[in-house]
């Protein structure tokens, strides 16, 4: 195939394509390069062969996961710590459907992803062709937006729009479905306009309304018992520095959502700890007692609010969010502000907002913090999961990037790992996806090669995506995998203990692989630790190593996450406070 390419087109493509047919797949690679894509997480197959062929000729670093779910969770980890869109490629049909969990996860946690799926050729779409799945239909409710490319000449525009939509406003996943023939077709447009965006229906508001900001300032000044609830919106807006200044300038007490951890230093004196189902007593009681709740970048998720009838019953509610649809969705709002968190906080700082006479209130909160801290009972022998987290904290100094899976270990990590920095906490909050933590750590490590990355997982969840151990070995990605091994599906077991009279239906998992041998099978270092002394020694060594390490950390099986707000209860009705 040799099609004349005009000079303008050749120039736009970098000049080296003269007299060569430019195919959709080449345009695809070129477009990713224009977006500054550093790496792709993917898995090949029939419908994306043209794309992988173009990638062979014109490489962008590609991470070959061992399952598409691993690829997309890695891309999520990458996106969370880097703030850039994670890029995923999978083939049509099963490749695409294997991404569904990750796409839904990214949607719930507002992570920017651009997901490319191959599709069967246009001519056979709709005929149940081999490896055909209607991935655009399937993912319509779980993407911020999605596209199927019908004409190769639309490809550069669609790719640029996809990155724009994914990473602006409230971030989220965007899927682009590319039929195989489109990748093969010859690009005929004279001009490759890479920065064209044609989205009249998409104009996120980022600048706060000044009158509303003034109202916030007045409300803060008037309040006797104000409280700030800080969510991940602050992290997405890269505003934790401004946020900390705002908190220190005003003296306001702060609590976090699960995903908001890291917006403020975990040991900051004004920080009350996480709120919600497994939040601290001080944080939850502060929500119950406050007269002004300033929510910045959180969505009042039900795991945070508990029973809405008892949520912040005495408070005037301020809600700052970039997504107008979040405001008023779960909790009626008195002062709504649609804005980027950073711009809103900067506007408040500029106004010189202050509090007046909240000394009694903050003293009361500090009293609760002292009197009802997170606590566990030391045992004579063996390791408590909480102790393991504290040990990891000790040996990383609170500086590590920590990812988790879903379950008890996730909540203990949220409670006991006090983060020094923003964007160091990677967990599946909204969807609660087991299997997320380990591959997410791989993506996080690739984004931040010089940081210590620890994946804390349960023995259950780790077994959902452990095939990605191949990646650690292959590219010597120095992720530290810590399995908090309680030989059961701990969180399920805890609920069965508490709400189902200890009927442990399908939650005990006594049979499991030898995780150390498993690591060795992948040619990785593996250790098993069963006592605090062993753990201290191994953690110390492993967390300073520049190699990947797996640690099978045996912890007490029957141990519960407390405090706990039972489902349907209000935040003031906590179990296991003292």
């Amino acid at each position, binding site marked *: 195939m040799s099609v004349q390419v005009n000079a303008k087109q050749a120039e736009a493509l970098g000049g080296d394509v003269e007299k060569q047919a430019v195919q959709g797949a080449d345009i695809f690679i070129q477009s990713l390069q224009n977006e500054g894509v550093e790496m792709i997480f993917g898995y090949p197959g029939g419908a994306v062969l043209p794309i992988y062929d173009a990638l062979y000729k014109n490489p962008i670093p590609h991470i070959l996961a061992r399952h598409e779910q691993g690829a997309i969770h890695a891309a999520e980890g990458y996106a969370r710590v880097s703030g850039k869109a994670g890029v995923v490629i999978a083939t049509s049909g099963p490749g695409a459907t294997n991404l569904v969990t990750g796409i839904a996860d990214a949607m719930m946690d507002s992570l920017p992803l651009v997901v490319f799926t191959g599709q069967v050729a246009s001519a056979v779409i709709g005929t149940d062709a081999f490896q055909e799945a209607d991935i655009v239909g399937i993912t319509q409710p779980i993407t911020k937006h999605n596209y199927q490319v019908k004409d190769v000449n639309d490809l550069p525009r669609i790719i640029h729009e996809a990155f724009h939509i994914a990473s602006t406003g409230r971030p989220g996943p965007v899927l682009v479905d590319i039929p195989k023939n489109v990748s093969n077709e010859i690009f005929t447009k004279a001009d490759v306009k890479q920065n064209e965006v044609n989205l009249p*229906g998409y104009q996120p508001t980022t600048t706060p309304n000044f009158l509303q900001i003034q109202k916030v300032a007045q409300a803060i000044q008037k309040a006797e018992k104000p409280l700030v609830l800080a969510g991940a919106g602050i992290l997405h807006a890269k505003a934790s520095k401004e946020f900390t200044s705002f908190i220190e300038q005003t003296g306001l007490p702060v609590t976090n959502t699960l995903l908001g951890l890291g917006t403020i230093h975990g040991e900051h004196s004004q920080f009350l700890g996480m709120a919600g189902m497994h939040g601290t007593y001080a944080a939850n009681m502060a929500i119950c007692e406050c007269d002004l709740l300033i929510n910045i970048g959180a969505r009042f998720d039900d795991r945070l609010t508990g029973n809405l009838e008892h949520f912040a019953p005495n408070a005037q509610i301020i809600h700052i969010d970039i997504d107008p*649809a979040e405001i008023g969705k779960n909790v009626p709002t008195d002062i709504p502000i649609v804005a980027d968190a950073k711009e809103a906080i900067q506007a408040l700082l500029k106004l010189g907002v202050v509090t007046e006479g909240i000394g009694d209130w903050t003293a009361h909160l500090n009293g609760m913090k002292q009197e009802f801290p997170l606590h566990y009972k030391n045992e004579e022998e063996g390791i408590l999961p909480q102790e393991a987290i504290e040990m990891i904290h000790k040996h990383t100094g609170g500086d590590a990037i920590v990812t988790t899976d879903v379950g008890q270990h996730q909540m203990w990590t949220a409670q006991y790992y006090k983060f020094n920095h923003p964007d160091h906490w990677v967990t599946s909050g909204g969807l609660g996806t087991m299997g997320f933590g380990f591959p997410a750590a791989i993506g996080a490590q690739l984004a931040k090669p010089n940081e210590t990355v620890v994946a804390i997982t349960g023995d259950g969840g780790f077994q959902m995506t452990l095939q990605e151990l191949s990646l650690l070995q292959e590219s010597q990605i120095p992720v530290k995998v810590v399995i908090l091994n309680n030989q059961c599906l701990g969180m399920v077991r805890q609920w069965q203990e508490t709400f189902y009279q200890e009927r442990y239906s399908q939650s005990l998992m006594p049979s499991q692989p030898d995780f150390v041998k498993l690591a060795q099978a992948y040619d990785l270092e593996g250790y098993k630790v069963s006592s605090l002394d062993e753990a201290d020694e191994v953690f110390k060594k492993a967390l300073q190593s520049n190699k990947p390490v797996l640690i099978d950390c045996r912890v007490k099986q029957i141990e519960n996450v407390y405090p706990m707000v039972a489902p349907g209860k209000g935040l003031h009705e906590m179990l296991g406070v003292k």
Partner: protein
Amino acid sequence: MMKRIITTTVINQSGVLNRVTGLLMKRQFNIESITVGHTEQPGISKMTFVVHVEDQRKLEQLLKQLQKQIDVLKVNDISDKAIVTRELALIKILSPPAVRSEITSIIEPFRATVIDMSKNVITVQVTGDPEKVEAFIDLVKPYGIKEMTRTGATSFVRENQKTPSQQLSIL
């Protein structure tokens, strides 16, 4: 439950109807009818829905969620404005010769038209606001409706609005 009439202006991309109805389903909104058609602008369509919502807050959620769709340009709740609403129904009525003139006498005041006829069945087209269509159907029902199809409502805001109507804040 409140009945609301909502219009949206959308970019006529493939799948946009699916997106909008999918959204309503995902968020558990109850659609009574939905109409879609081209507008005077090429590439732009208009949808009119009649929905039932529990309260003001749910309504606001619906409008905001619709507005969030990338292909949706404009969303309006026009229920409280001066509007014109029209619906068309095609109805096959059993009409043996004995009752035919009686039926015709009902058709006339409604300005409905007979558009097809066979030995025992006439097909009638009736246009008007949904209440009028409803009233007509009630009147002819006793004769026996063989088949019926309704388009659902489509609406416009009138050029002259008497009182400034309360606008829901889309923030």
